[in-house]
């Protein structure tokens, strides 16, 4: 059923008794052309692009729990394409363009809100680094503006301009950046992919790979039986190493916990997405009114989906340093997501050394904003067996070659990215 104000109004007359499932509750078939492991945003987007762009509809998405139960459902919902290095710049802009048409593509309101993302700077050196990045964006046709102090004051008069330890000097603004409703992205892709024939199979945990005599992957073993596949794509950020290990692969990835926080709902206070340049803090306000904020990863390998107090305090200290008006706003919930932290802070989308197995991993903090772009380029790779041009640098062998995409310049230490 097509969603619109008219269908809603019609449904209201029948007490909303006639709505169908948002996506079909499929049971596994014996064989699919493509099996995607991971029913998060990336896996579902990949399935949708396979079906809609590449005409491959005999596709299953396998999810060990409920769709969106991983990082798709526990991030801070920011979308942006303000990256500075070749590889990232073009890819995240591709993704941004797909965000801009997502609702119409999917017939689902994912609440893409282009309210602007501003990175604040606090020193000349930081301004220069932001200028370099902003110019990269502009040269790539991406909107970027370098704001001076007066412009920042006008836009966000509530920041601490008077007695800050590291006074704000300006910011790099991407007006097209913003937020989207994370769960709705998952449901929207599920809704649209399911309508094109993709089977979304929940509570189906992959326990191993079926391989032929040559080692080629021919399917997956799951908690719901063996499922044959022409190709298998992994989109299981947070668990990439564990799933890859089933195929005998070691990855340049560590799993780390990133905490996120939301405050009680309050009336509109913060107009955009902000990142503090002198501490670990970024924030936006959800449509419901909660301040959604976060900071740095806890810094140690973890699969526990929860963090500890030092980082929680560090994040709140950053928030209070930036805008002491939030002192009396109450933190309502905290949670943790498991990040695939790669060795250069950038993702991996590539074939693997195992024939028939394809990898989409290593998203670090960038996973949510990448969702549509990741779906498109991974679908391209699965369909065409060659990388999409905007993902050509996200190769697995780049570490061996020395062609890292290291935005922060901190090297092969995942907890610093």
């Amino acid at each position, binding site marked *: 059923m097509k969603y619109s104000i008219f269908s809603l109004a019609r449904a209201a007359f029948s007490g909303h008794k006639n709505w*169908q499932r948002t996506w079909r509750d499929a049971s596994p078939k014996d064989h699919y052309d493509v099996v995607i492991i991971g029913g998060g945003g990336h896996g579902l987007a990949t399935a949708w692009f396979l079906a809609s762009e590449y005409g491959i509809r005999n596709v299953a998405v396998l999810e060990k729990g409920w769709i969106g139960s991983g990082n798709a459902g526990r991030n801070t919902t920011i979308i942006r394409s303000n990256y500075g290095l070749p590889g990232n710049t073009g890819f995240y802009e591709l993704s941004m363009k797909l965000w801009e048409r997502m609702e119409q593509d999917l017939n689902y309101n994912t609440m893409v809100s282009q309210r602007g993302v501003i990175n604040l700077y606090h020193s000349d050196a930081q301004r220069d680094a932001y200028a370099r990045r902003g110019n990269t964006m502009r040269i790539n046709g991406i909107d970027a503006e370098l704001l001076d102090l007066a412009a920042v004051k006008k836009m966000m008069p509530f920041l601490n301009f008077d007695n800050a330890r590291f006074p704000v000097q300006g910011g790099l603004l991407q007006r097209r950046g913003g937020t989207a409703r994370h769960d709705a992205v998952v449901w929207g892709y599920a809704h649209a992919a399911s309508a094109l024939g993709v089977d979304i199979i929940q509570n189906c945990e992959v326990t191993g790979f079926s391989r032929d005599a040559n080692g080629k992957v021919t399917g997956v073993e799951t908690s719901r039986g063996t499922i044959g596949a022409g190709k298998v794509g992994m989109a299981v950020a947070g668990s990439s190493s564990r799933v890859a290990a089933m195929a005998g692969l070691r990855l340049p990835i560590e799993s780390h916990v990133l905490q996120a926080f939301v405050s009680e709902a*309050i009336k509109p206070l913060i107009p955009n997405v902000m990142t503090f340049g002198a501490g670990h803090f970024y924030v936006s306000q959800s449509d419901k009114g909660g301040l959604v904020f976060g900071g740095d990863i806890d810094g140690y390998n973890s699969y526990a989906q929860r963090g500890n107090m030092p980082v929680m*305090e560090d994040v709140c200290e950053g928030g209070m340093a930036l805008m002491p008006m939030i*002192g009396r706003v109450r933190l309502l919930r905290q949670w943790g997501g498991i990040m695939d932290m790669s060795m250069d802070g950038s993702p991996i989308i590539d074939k693997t050394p195992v024939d028939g197995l394809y990898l989409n991993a290593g998203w670090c903090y960038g996973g949510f904003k990448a969702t549509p772009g990741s779906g498109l380029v991974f679908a391209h790779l699965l369909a065409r067996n060659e990388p999409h041009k905007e993902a050509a640098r996200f190769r697995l062998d780049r570490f061996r070659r020395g062609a890292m995409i290291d935005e922060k310049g901190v090297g092969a230490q995942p907890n610093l990215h």
Partner: protein
Amino acid sequence: MVSHAQTHRLASGGLIDRSAPLNFRFDGKTFAGFQGDTLASALIANGVKLVGRSFKYHRPRGILTSGSEEPNALVELRTGARREPNTKATTAELYDGLEAASQNRWPSLRHDLMAVNQLFSPIFVAGFYYKTFMWPAKFWEAIYEPAIRRAAGLGRAAGVADPDHYDKAWAHCDVLIAGSGPAGLAAALASGRSGARVILCEEDFALGGRLLADGGTIDGMPAAEWISRTLAELASLPNVRIMNRTTLFGVYDGGTYGAIERVNDHLPSPPEHQVRQRLWRIVAKRSIVAAGAIERPIVFAGNDTPGVMMASAMRTYVERYAVTPAKRIALFINNEDGWRTVETALGAGLQIAAVVDARPDVSAAHRALAAKAGFPVLNGFVSGVDGGKDGVRKISVALVGGARAEVEADGLGVSGGWNPAVGLTSYHRGRPKWQDDISAFVPDSAPPGMVAAGAANGAFGLGACLRQGFAAGVAAAQTAGHGVPPVADDEAFSLTPLWHVAGKGKAFVDYQHDVTASDIELAQREGFESVEHLKRYTTLGMATDQGKTSNVAGLAIMAAVSGKSIPETGTTIYRPPYVPVAIGAFAGHHRDENFHATRLTPSHHWAAEQGAVFVDTGLWKRAQWYPRAGEKDWLESVTREVKAVRGGVGFCDVSTLGKIDVHGPDAGAFLDRVYINTFSSLAVGKARYGLMLREDGMVYDDGTTSRLAEDHYFLTTTTAKAGPVMQHLEFCRQVLFPELDVQLTSVSDQWAQFSIAGPKTRDLLGEIVEPVADLSNEGFPFMGAREVPLRGGIMARLFRISFSGEMAFEISVPARYGDALVRNLMLAGKQFGVTPYGTEALGVMRIEKGHVAGPELNGATTAADLGLGKMMSTKKDFIGRVMAGREALVAPDRQVVVGIKPTDKTRRLRSGAHIIPKAEIPGPDHDQGYVTSVCFSPTLDQWIGLALVERGRERIGEIVHAHDPLRGENYDVELCNPVFYDPDGGRQRG
């Protein structure tokens, strides 16, 4: 203004202090209450029923509970900069002059035009917004979203800086107890008597938990007496600490707990020099969760009408606060506990209109009580409530068997049973288990060291609470001497599960978020059956009450509509904090200027006296330049400083550099492994510039290292990397090369270090160094390093190194002499026109000399990129050697450091501009690098810069575009040798 009379205050009783009357204001009206009231009890005392509006439909709402689980009675407390939105009236302590306002309504609470939303409620069902507001695409940001955002949210934040202070503290104990009800107090007695260090946290200001409202007999005495005796005993034990107004909100790894103490929230504002709240990090060997249970509502049409209240809350209001939520009370219950409210109400002289008991088998004693008091006991369900913003008027009852009844009442007490407070036990992702006899989830596993006791563990009888609490206290203390446990009888408890009464009209599950039973049915219909999907689709349990009253009912209804059992349906993940906690408390004093520490250089106070402008460099404040009277801008000052150095002599505080003493017979061998160049061959008394790589082959840090003795090197790092390099070197020493006999000592803070530069440097140094020290070019050649005596007797380290390109020395003295040294340099140097210079002039001179610094050492450059590839030894192993040889790191088209000069000599350069070939249009395919550092060079009288440019060194002399669309600039620059000044280095060696 005249206070309204407390029309609903009982003449006697309660734990309020009638000798301490208080005035307060709600929505501009003045009311009276007493010390010991909450805002909620005081509003009830004044007959106020309408307190708030709901989130989505703006339905009128009253007071549902008496605790931190309250979903409805939320207010903006205080005014101005201290305004606190979404404050639960049920936990806000009354103080004289309290001001509160209702929220999420316009123009007023009684006449809220936003209630028009209710007309659209047939459309505003769960998740409706996912299905619409999509066309036209541009309208989302322009129209729909702003409207939604304005309507959403609840209270208004102050919007200005929080004027109060917050504190953070640590506490350590053997046994940590959450809750001061019977189980918590019994636990404290047992563990406290045993001598264990005990901390008991109670979120309420009064201690006793449910005993304060429900009373009972313990050890043969009334509960109130037992509480005071117990508290007296606990107070006599020095090892027991009781913290009221303190909520244990989370449990973290290693027995670390988070607690929030509301130190002064019960006052209009904190007394001077006192904090508002304190965040506690409590480290406990064991913990006992005695946090009680939360009574749960039953979902029926109209269950959100003001005047519908939890049955136990009614008892609390009557017994503890001596206020009457209603005069003629009906009860709708499915368990034995609800009958206690009947007894309480009758005892207070209130009328019972009827008891609607869903259980078929009401005891003879209850029936006798009903007969005596003259109210009917109806076996059935409340199916509707007639009332509105002024409260309940009448309830409709569907009787078992099909008949209907109506009951006139002005209040309805509801009890659907009790949910143990399983939050703390579940925060490590432990899932609670279902217990059939109480139809509730109870703790299954718990974080290490934690147990639950009493009602939090599913034991609802008073005797059982005391027994479990005491036993937990004994076990936790792990020592003998706990004495005799307190004893009480257990009340009967029977319950017939009842979650939802089907019928017409909105029946609320999550009051605050307006989630109804039909929303849950819709979610199930649309496939959102997983409890986490349910929560996310309907927003069930995501409000400020964290679903304390709604979650279990919601999943019970989901279980029913999807044909599964409740345990099969499961619970969502429990997430801390247990109650919302002010963000300011987590920050403590780390805000404003105290966000991070401030490090001052040894010459800071002197520089401040000179009027220096300071710049933040990491945690350091460094003098950026020293303006003089009449100078119109920074450029004029910096230009003067550079010229003074190049023409005479100047000095600059470089104490912020990291400094590490490397001692031991293997010190040279160690340095050979961490630097790309060789240090074991360095002669004693000599300094050498060194470059370190990361293991991945990228440049990590640089600096000069001097050999002061055969087994003693003095290593310097950049300011930014002082800490990380120390950590890295310790890793190399302790983990990678444990066989080497070498020791590292950080001496960054021990030495004040100054660079003295310019052709008159020797003249100046001659004034402060003892004449025995030969400073001549022969006696102290370029890159020499040794100790010299200063006039006055102290020893200094002198290094003949130059960053400026001039004849220069760096001089180190013990940090405590830094201030004296700089003052003496000024005195002695007056005759030479000595000029202090700041980091800007330092930067100008290093760019003129083509030295790389932070902007070039960006973590993604190789030694060769920086023009330092020849330093890499091929004769030894060192960190980063192997990976530096990877194909992409030695590719010929890498971006390398070059100099740039604008072709128009008057043109200003800016860092961050990109380099585009002259013939090309800017685009990603022609983006060949960027400008890293720029300055106005007083020496060349024009702007110059350094840039990282593809194949740059092969392109010296080429004219390219500096493209800077961010700043609307595009101009020609010439690629040139990065050493702009004295390229053969004659000046620094002279």
